[in-house]
C-alpha cells in the first residue's frame, strides 16, 4: 500500500537513508538559496549598476552620458517643455523627474538614505521650512561653491535673482539651495459685492478690512462676507498671514499671541466670527470648500495663495475684473505706518548630497531659474518668481493680468514664512485655536493666549 502511494519525488529505495538524504539536501538547498539571495543583496547595495540605475551613472570625462533624477512636489514647478530645451543645450545630460507627495518627501528621503539606496540628484521642495532638517540629515550639502560657480559662469542670470533666493536657505550663513519661486497670500474679492457695500480697495489697514466685511454683511445679511479654511490638517496659513500682517513677533514658527500684534489678530478673528462675518461651518472646510464658496458667489472675500489666481483665471464663467479681483493684504492694524510684514512661502531647489554629478545637477537649477522657463511654468500653474526679469516681463503680465504693481511690491517686500522643525506641532495647536475661534467663542483674546501660548512654547523644547 505504501509503495503504491509513494510520491514521485520520494526515492525508489526502501526509504530510510534515501529519504533522510533528500530532506537534508532540500534543507541545504534552501540555506544555499538564502545565502545566495543575501549575497546578491549585498552586491546590489554596492553596485549601482545592479539596482536598475546603471544608466544613471557614467564614467568621468567630457562627453559622458549623464542621467539625472529630479524629485519635485508639484508637476507645475517643472518647465512645461519637460527639459526638452535643456536636453538640446546639454545633449550629454538626460533629466527625468518624479513627482513626490509633499507631506512625505522628507520621510521618503530619510528612508532611502537609511536603506543605502540611490537618492535623486536634485530636489524641488515645497516646504522650504524643512530645508534645515534636510541639511541636518545630511541630505543637502552646502551650496556656496555651487553658487559661486554659477555666479562666475553665468553672472547675468545669477544677478537676476533676488537676494532672498539665497538668504532663505541659509543655514549658519551658508546657502543650501535656491528659493527661486514663492507663493504668497492676497485678498481676493468680489468687485460687485464691494461696490454694493461701498467698500474701496486697496485696504489701508486690517481695521478697514473688518469694516468692509461689516458693510458687506449689512448689504447682504444672509451672505458669508469672508470665507476661510479651518479644517484640521489643512494648515493655518490665513491665521499666520494675519498674525504677520499685524506685526506679531515669531520665534521660529511660534507666534507670540500675547504681543500687541497677536492680541490684535485674535480679537480681529473673534469679532469677525462672533458678528457672523465668517461662516462657522468653515471649521469643516478645507481649501476646496473655502474656494468653492468664493467661486460660487456665496462669499465676498477670501485670503488665499497666489496659485488660486491662476486657477480662478481658468475657471469658466468666472471672469477676472468682473467676478473676482485681488488686492494685497494691508500691513497695518489701524492705518498709518506698517505694523507687520507680508509672508511668502518659498519653493526651494537644491542639489542632493551624494550625487555623482553635482555640476550637472546645478545646471538643472540654473535651467529652472531661466526667465522663459519661469514664465512658462507660471502659465502652467506655478507661483511667482524671485527673478526680476521674469517678474517684470510683459509676457508674464499677459499670463497673469491680475499681477498688478501693488501685488508685485507686496511680493517683493514679503518675508519668509515663519518656519522651523516644530512647525507641524505648532500648526496643530494653532488649528485647534483657530477652529475654536471660527466656531464662535466666548473667550477673550487674553484667555485664548493664556491657554494656547504655553502649548506653543512647549514645542520649542
Amino acid at each position, binding site marked *: *500500500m*505504501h509503495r503504491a*502511494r*509513494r*510520491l514521485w*519525488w*520520494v*526515492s525508489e529505495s*526502501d*526509504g*530510510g*537513508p534515501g*529519504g*533522510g538524504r*533528500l*530532506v537534508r539536501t*532540500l*534543507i541545504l538547498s*534552501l540555506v544555499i538559496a538564502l545565502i545566495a539571495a543575501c549575497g546578491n543583496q549585498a552586491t546590489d547595495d554596492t553596485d549601482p549598476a545592479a539596482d536598475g540605475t546603471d544608466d544613471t551613472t557614467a564614467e568621468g570625462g567630457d562627453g559622458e552620458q549623464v542621467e539625472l533624477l529630479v524629485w519635485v512636489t508639484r508637476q507645475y514647478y517643472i518647465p512645461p517643455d519637460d527639459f526638452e530645451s535643456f536636453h538640446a543645450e546639454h545633449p550629454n545630460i538626460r533629466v527625468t523627474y518624479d513627482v513626490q507627495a509633499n*507631506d*512625505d518627501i522628507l*520621510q521618503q528621503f*530619510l528612508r532611502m538614505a537609511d536603506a543605502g539606496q540611490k537618492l535623486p540628484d536634485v530636489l524641488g521642495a515645497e516646504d522650504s521650512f524643512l530645508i534645515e*532638517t534636510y541639511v*541636518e*540629515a*545630511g541630505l543637502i550639502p552646502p551650496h556656496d561653491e555651487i553658487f559661486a560657480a554659477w555666479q562666475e559662469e553665468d553672472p547675468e542670470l545669477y544677478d537676476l535673482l533676488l537676494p532672498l533666493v539665497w538668504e532663505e536657505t541659509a543655514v549658519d550663513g551658508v546657502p543650501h539651495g535656491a528659493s527661486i519661486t514663492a507663493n504668497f497670500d492676497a485678498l481676493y474679492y468680489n468687485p460687485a459685492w464691494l461696490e454694493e457695500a461701498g467698500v474701496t480697495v486697496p485696504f489701508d489697514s486690517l481695521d478697514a478690512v473688518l469694516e468692509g466685511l461689516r458693510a458687506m454683511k449689512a448689504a447682504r445679511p444672509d451672505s458669508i462676507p469672508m470665507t476661510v479654511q479651518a*479644517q*484640521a*490638517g*489643512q494648515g493655518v496659513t490665513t491665521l499666520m498671514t494675519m498674525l504677520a500682517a499685524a506685526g506679531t513677533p515669531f520665534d521660529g514658527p511660534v507666534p507670540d499671541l500675547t504681543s500687541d500684534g497677536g492680541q490684535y489678530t485674535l480679537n480681529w478673528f473673534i469679532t469677525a466670527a462672533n458678528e457672523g462675518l465668517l*461662516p*462657522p*461651518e*468653515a*471649521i*469643516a472646510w*478645507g481649501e476646496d*470648500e473655502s474656494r*468653492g*464658496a468664493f467661486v*460660487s458667489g*456665496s462669499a465676498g472675500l477670501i485670503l488665499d495663495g497666489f496659485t488660486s489666481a491662476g486657477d480662478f483665471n481658468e475657471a469658466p464663467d468666472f471672469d477676472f475684473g468682473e467676478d473676482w479681483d485681488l488686492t494685497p493684504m494691508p500691513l497695518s492694524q489701524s492705518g498709518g505706518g506698517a505694523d507687520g510684514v507680508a509672508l511668502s512661502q518659498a519653493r526651494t531647489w537644491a542639489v542632493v548630497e551624494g550625487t555623482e554629478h553635482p555640476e550637472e545637477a546645478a545646471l538643472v537649477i540654473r535651467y529652472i531659474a531661466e526667465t522663459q522657463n519661469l514664465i512658462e511654468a507660471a502659465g502652467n500653474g506655478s507661483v511667482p518668481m524671485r527673478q526680476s526679469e521674469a517678474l517684470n516681463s510683459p509676457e508674464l503680465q499677459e499670463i497673469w493680468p491680475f499681477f498688478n504693481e501693488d501685488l508685485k511690491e507686496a511680493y517683493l517686500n514679503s518675508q519668509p514664512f515663519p518656519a522651523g*522643525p516644530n512647525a*507641524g*506641532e505648532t*500648526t*496643530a495647536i494653532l*488649528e*485647534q485655536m483657530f*477652529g*475654536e475661534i471660527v*466656531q464662535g467663542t466666548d473667550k477673550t483674546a487674553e484667555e485664548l493666549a493664556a491657554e494656547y501660548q504655553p502649548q506653543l512654547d512647549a514645542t520649542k523644547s
Partner: protein
Amino acid sequence: MTAATARTRRRWWQRPPQRPDTSHQLQLGHHRATPYLFSLPSIILVAAVLGFPVLYGVWQSLYDRERLVSDPEFVGFANYIEMFQADTFWQSMGRTAIFVFGSLVVGTVLGLFFAFALFRVVEGLRFLRAVTVAPYIISNVAAAVMFRILFNSQFGLVNQFLGWFGIDGPSWLADPNMAMLVVIFTQVWTDLPLSILLLLGGLMTIDQSYLDASLVDGASGWTRARYITIPLLVPQLLISTVWLSYSTLTGLGVVLALTGGGPLRATQTLAMEMYTVAFRNLEFNQALAIATFILILNAVLTLAYVAIGRRYDYER
C-alpha cells in the same frame, strides 16, 4: 480491547487495519519534519513580510530621537509612559471607543438587515448580492471624499434633500457630535459589504429543516430569527464583529480624508493621533508606541470577541 477482538469484530466490507511500517518512517512523506519543511517557505515569507516589520516597529518604539535626524537612543518604556500620561491620548481613546462601538452596532444591525434581505431576494434580483460588494472595492479615501461632499452643510445633497421636506439640515461636519456620526456612517459604508457577505454565507448554510420544523410549530418570522437563525449565525457574527472592530480601530483613511480629526479634535481617534504624532509632529518613535498599543488593543478585543462568541456558539 485486544487486537484479536478487534479483528473478530471487523465486518467484511471494512478495510483491514494498517500496520505501522517503521521501515517507511524516514520516507519524505512520513517524516515528522516533512510538514514543517513544506511550510518553511511560507513561514519565512510571512515572518519576513509581516512579522519583521511589526517586531521592528515594536522595537523602535523603545527608542527616541531628540530630533528627527539624530541617532536613536534607547529609552525603554519612556514613550509608553509619556503616551499614557498625555491627555490627548486618553481623549483619543474615548473617541475611539465611541467610534468602534458605534461602527459595531450600526455595522452589525445593517449587516444582518441586508443579509436577511439578500437571502430572501427573489430569483431575478439575485445580482444584487454581487452589487453589494461595490462599496468594498472603492477606496475608503475616495468614499470619505464623496461623503464629505454629500454632507457639506452649504451645498451637500443630504441637506438639499432635507430641505425638500422643509428641514434645515445641521452642519454635519462642523458640529463635533454630528461629525462623529458621519465618520461612523462612512466607515460602516466601506466595511459593510464584507459583513453582509459573511452573514449571507452563514444564512445559506443553515439547515432548512430547523426552519421548516419551526414553521410547523407556528413560529413567527421574528421568533425564527431570534431563536434559530441568529443563534446559528454566531460564528459568522463573530467573524464580522472581529472584522468591523479591527477595521474601525485601525481605520485612518476615512477620518483623515473626511474630517482630518476635527472639528475641534472631535474625531481624533487613536489611529489619527498616531498619524498626527508621526507625520505632523515628526515624532516617529512615539507614534510607534501608539501603533503598538493599537496592535495590542486589537488582539485583546479579538480574544474577547472570540471568548464571548464561544459562549453563544450553539453548533459547538
